[in-house]
């Protein structure tokens, strides 16, 4: 598997795991950093197409409407480039807050963990190892 650690973005590294981009967000994100990440992901997909994007937010303490919108936009633009986005590991307090805020992000696919997200993508992608539950 080709592990290509790309440091093209200022703060958030985008890791390429085979045909999946893996992004791990940590702590408190600067608005500019989030926007930069959005551009970086699109660029990466255009440069070398992938089937999936996994964004691990288990280390993120708050998601406000700005970051929520950035995540939704990453998912929407990746979909246009034929890649599925899965947001993984949202903390309970963050999920409760987002719902109370009125942001239920219906278009966003979610998973309990990065492993679960990678599993979902492997099942969904036609080229990946099919693990159809019977």
């Amino acid at each position: 598997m080709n592990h290509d650690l790309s440091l093209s973005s200022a703060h958030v590294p985008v890791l390429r795991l085979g045909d999946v981009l893996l992004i791990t967000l940590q702590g408190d994100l600067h608005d500019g950093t989030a926007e930069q990440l959005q551009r970086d992901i699109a660029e990466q997909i255009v440069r070398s197409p992938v089937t999936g994007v996994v964004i691990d937010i288990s280390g993120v303490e708050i998601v406000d409407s700005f970051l929520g919108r950035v995540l939704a936009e990453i998912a929407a633009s990746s979909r246009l480039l034929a890649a599925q986005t899965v947001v993984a590991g949202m903390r309970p307090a963050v999920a409760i807050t987002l719902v109370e805020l009125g942001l239920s992000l219906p278009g966003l696919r979610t998973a309990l963990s990065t492993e679960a997200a990678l599993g979902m993508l492997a099942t969904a992608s036609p080229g990946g190892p099919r693990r159809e539950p019977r």
Partner: protein
Amino acid sequence: MPEHETAAEQTTPASDVGRFLHRRREQIAQRWADEPLFRTVFTVSRDEAVEAGRVLVDALAQVAETGRVADTDAAGFTAVREQLTGMVASRARFGLTSGQVSTEVDGLRPPAVTLLAADLPEATPEHLRECTTLLTVLMGTLRLVVLETSLSEGQALIDRQQLELMEATTPVIRLWDGIVAVPLIGTLDSARSQVVMETLLESVVDQQARFAILDITGVPMVDSLVAQHLMKTVAAVRLMGAECVVSGIRPAIAQTIVHLGLDLGTVVTRSSLADALAYALKRLGADIVIAAPGGAGPR
């Protein structure tokens, strides 16, 4: 307050008491350190008790100077409220009632009054009496502040217990590997819904559960507020990457939901907990085979 003759030198009882407290800060603190209240709270070292006494004297001096000796909300009291709360809590752990703690606080008055008399040998009897009265009022107010603190501590304890009770009546059960369920029994108000949501979400993380079942068989009434809470829980579970199934919607509740015009369209519902479990198992890829004829009917 009647103007006094000796007030010609521009001293009022309040300012005199304030100055006295500043001047005799160390002695008062030393005496208080030996009183039951301080002795029993600060058991580690006497220095600690003396230091706490100094802080309290400073606070009282501040109150006296502002002239608000009968005001429990005076700024000086606010500053020591936290310390007093700690002391009260410590005494409460020993099993003392609010009244007993209050009596211990009253024990701080005589040493202070004795020192005041010694501190003002020049004062006329009337002036001394006024100063003593003022100090007594001030100490009485302190007693009220402490009483207030201990009552609110009691209320806080009741609140905590109520919350614990709610948590205890909201058990999350692991039904299968990757499937958790909360059987809800009783009225679902805002506070309880919050607890349900938090405990369910925590268990989804702990168990890495892909399915969370909310069973509302035991909920007597579903109004728009309850339905809203259910929808929020479903949405939050989904954001975490799991799926929520609402089970136990009785016909009457189904009708209410329709009457209220609520759209539960995006929510997976099943009539019973068993059906919800079967649904989740199937989605997890498990097969349910009924071996014996007759099946699993209600016992």
